[in-house]
């Protein structure tokens, strides 16, 4: 089971009242390579991965929920004091009509979160998928940083981008662990 902790993993500050950023950030909330997709993918794959790397998938999957909460916090803060008129100007008119000010699991183009998650049941295929997913999420953060004018949001996004790098590193190590002969001891 899971326990909630009443704090964010990393402080989120939004420096500029620019609801347009919310439209971009939502990509990492409900997009194909977003944090929800990552969390669900790893927690789903963990059942059928060899025991040696089960814990890693479980823990990275859990951390992704903390990232999801950070993204939601940015979106919430950017939209909570916006008037319908401002939301319309920010390209969030359709969002507002459909969902009000609710945060919603869809991507930057407004497509609903898709459950087309990759989970093949083959350990190597799944871990390579996960490495690719981390690199894709890393690039999404780069694209958002490129388009953002808020240094404080970019600070949080920089943190999240670095986490993708660390996760990718760990998944690469997991592949190495699975390549190893079971009887052989790891030499550093």
């Amino acid at each position: 089971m899971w326990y909630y902790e009443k704090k964010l993993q990393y402080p989120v500050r939004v420096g500029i009242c620019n609801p347009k950023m919310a439209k971009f950030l939502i990509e990492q909330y409900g997009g194909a390579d977003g944090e929800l997709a990552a969390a669900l993918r790893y927690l789903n794959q963990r059942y059928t991965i060899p025991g040696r790397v089960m814990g890693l998938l479980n823990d990275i999957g859990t951390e992704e929920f903390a990232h999801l909460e950070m993204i939601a916090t940015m979106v919430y803060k950017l939209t909570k004091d916006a008037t319908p008129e401002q939301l319309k100007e920010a390209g969030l008119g359709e969002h507002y009509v459909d969902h009000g000010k609710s945060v919603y699991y869809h991507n930057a183009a407004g497509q609903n979160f898709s459950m087309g998650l990759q989970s093949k049941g083959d350990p190597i295929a799944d871990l390579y998928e996960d490495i690719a997913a981390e690199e894709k999420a890393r690039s999404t953060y780069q694209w958002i940083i490129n388009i953002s004018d808020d240094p404080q949001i970019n600070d949080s996004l920089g943190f999240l981008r670095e986490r993708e790098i660390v996760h990718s590193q760990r998944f690469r190590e997991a592949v190495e662990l699975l390549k190893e002969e079971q009887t052989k001891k790891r030499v550093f």
Partner: protein
Amino acid sequence: MAEPTQVPESYYSDLKSLQAIDFTLVELTLYLDTHPNDLDALKQFNSTAKKSAELREGFEARYGPLRQFGHSLSAYPWQWKDTPWPWQV
């Protein structure tokens, strides 16, 4: 209607201290998942976990419970449901 009281300034710096210690624990956890035989990292994990527990206890005494389902104690009346939540501060 009056606006709910804001958290004191010290909340942010105290929170950050806890976030920093707990982040070290996240990193060590993932590292140990792929390096289970690194004894130094393991010792560091255990001592950091103790430090985190101390910090958390002090933080909760000042600002209310951080964990629930029985992992944090509560003063009367039930404090867990109190605002602000992390996305509000």
